[in-house]
């Protein structure tokens, strides 16, 4: 197809036809204060391709990227080493260019990797059945609440103060438009939240996160029992899936639905997405589960094969009564997850988790030894919260000016609560080195 730009004559003819003198006149309904007067300052006028590339390289160089600086940011997205094999595998044309299978059984390769993905997710979470993935952890969490509402026929969700604020926001948005209520607890920076007393006969589900947004690791076995006694479900969210290499899986605590952000395995930070949501539940709830489900079977000759199963839950069959409006998934990210986890194996995954915890323990010891800094966690995996002697946001900015990415000030995600202003979240994965920790500690001492 040829691209034919409009000539000045074309424009003049079109304006004359609609009775307008200039293109600017078409914008007269936009208030003058909202209009851009002239050019954007600092942005060059149109240039040739080579010049544009140079200009944008200069812009990009102003960013401090994770690979070029000491990096301790987590809060829901984690920098891990992804082996180059993963990229090679997912870039094979059979995987890279395929779309969600609408004639599924013809694409056995896709169904097989999704089946393996589901198996891995079931094993990691300690649950009986997992779907072929969601868009990401946060939307998966809101789908989990909708599912719990369907199962319990109740409409009140109780949200822990330890849940990531973005996840909470998405659940609240869905609640608003789906007409149920989400009761949210206060931010739980100390990891001492007690939700059992708040569970009542109207509660459809309790949503907790492990480790929590503030890094605390908890056992929710008692909470699960209290939920079940009241006829409610327990939803456990995991934003750092590598933690499941060391921490008791939510399934063993009695969780009814487990939702994870799977980015840490196989997927880079990528400016926040696309990521991949893991979603697992109990067998007895499978018909209320959102998303696609791949099953293993045998063909007419008795050979192993894969099918999409229980599709009657889905939008293309049940229309407006489907369990969810999700009609695709983060397939390529799920593949990256599966390839990376397969490369690691069970022992490798546990070793990766141990390495993360060891690095974070070292970082916690060294940060807590900086005068005026107090560690808030009794337990953590690869991320923890410290209280600084002054507001954390300007400290992080000052360190960023020194090209050190020193974590996430809690006030950035919880802006309306002055009690968290001095709190800083720090994460250390297997990628942390002395070359990064040394400058961070020195920088903190200077800035505080």
């Amino acid at each position: 197809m040829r691209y034919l730009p409009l000539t000045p004559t074309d424009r003049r003819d079109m304006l004359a036809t609609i009775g307008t003198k200039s293109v600017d006149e078409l914008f007269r309904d936009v208030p003058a204060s909202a209009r851009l007067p002239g050019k954007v300052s600092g942005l060059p006028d149109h240039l040739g391709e080579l010049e544009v590339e140079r200009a944008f390289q200069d812009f990009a160089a102003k960013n401090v990227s994770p690979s070029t600086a000491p990096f301790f940011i987590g809060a829901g997205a984690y920098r891990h080493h992804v082996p180059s094999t993963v990229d090679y595998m997912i870039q094979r044309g059979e995987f890279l260019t395929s779309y969600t299978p609408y004639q599924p059984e013809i694409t056995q390769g896709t169904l097989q990797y999704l089946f393996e993905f589901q198996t891995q997710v079931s094993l990691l979470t300690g649950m009986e059945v997992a779907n072929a993935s969601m868009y990401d952890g946060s939307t998966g969490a809101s789908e989990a609440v909708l599912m719990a509402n369907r199962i319990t026929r109740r409409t009140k969700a109780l949200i822990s103060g330890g849940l990531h604020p973005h996840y909470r926001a998405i659940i609240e948005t869905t609640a608003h438009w789906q007409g149920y209520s989400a009761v949210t607890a206060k931010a739980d920076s100390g990891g001492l939240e007690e939700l059992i007393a708040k569970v009542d006969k109207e509660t459809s589900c309790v949503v907790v996160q492990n480790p929590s947004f503030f890094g605390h690791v908890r056992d929710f076995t008692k909470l699960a029992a209290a939920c079940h006694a009241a006829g409610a479900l327990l939803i456990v969210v995991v934003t750092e899936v590598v933690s499941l290499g060391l921490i008791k899986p939510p399934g063993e605590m009695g969780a009814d639905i487990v939702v994870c952000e799977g980015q840490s395995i196989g997927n880079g930070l990528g400016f926040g997405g696309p990521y991949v949501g893991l979603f697992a539940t109990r067998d007895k709830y499978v018909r209320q589960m959102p998303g696609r489900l791949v099953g293993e079977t045998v063909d007419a000759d008795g050979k192993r094969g894969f099918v999409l199963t229980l599709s009657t839950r889905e939008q293309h069959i049940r229309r407006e009564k489907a369990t969810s409006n999700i009609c695709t998934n983060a397939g390529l990210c799920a593949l990256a997850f599966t390839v990376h986890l397969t490369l690691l194996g069970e022992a490798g995954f546990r070793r990766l988790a141990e390495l993360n915890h060891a690095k974070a323990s070292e970082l916690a010891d060294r940060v807590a030894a900086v005068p005026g800094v107090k560690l808030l966690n009794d337990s953590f995996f690869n991320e923890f919260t410290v209280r600084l002697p002054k507001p954390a946001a300007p400290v992080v900015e000052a360190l960023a000016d020194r090209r050190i990415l020193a974590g996430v000030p809690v006030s950035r995600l919880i802006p309306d609560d002055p009690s968290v202003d001095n709190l800083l979240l720090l994460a250390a994965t297997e990628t942390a080195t002395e070359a990064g920790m040394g400058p961070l500690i020195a920088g903190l001492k200077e800035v505080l």
Partner: protein
Amino acid sequence: MADTKYTQEHEWLRVDGDVGTIGITQYAQEQLGDVVFVDVPQAGRKVAKGEACAVVESVKAASDIYAPVSGEVVEANAALADTPGDVNAEPMGKGWFFKIKLSDKGELSGLMDEAAYNDFVKSLG
């Protein structure tokens, strides 16, 4: 079975006193094929005539079951959770779905008797 009524949605309703038992017809189960799952309403639920209140799922399709009359659900067939095949084996016997306490017996006059239903099925070809 003079007290059994039928709907154009292929449900049957057998009235005993003011309680009606509801299921799907032989024709309906043949059309659906093997039933693999049935979702029945909870006891206590109030339903209006024509309201979708149960789901029957077969290897071919998932279909809604509509309340043939208005009233309150007093019992659901819990056994179908484990043996959904009862719907195929005995659609008008142990394959029943749920029981409704009728709020308006006058609604019964709008339903078909067995002869009328058989004619209706024949008319579908």
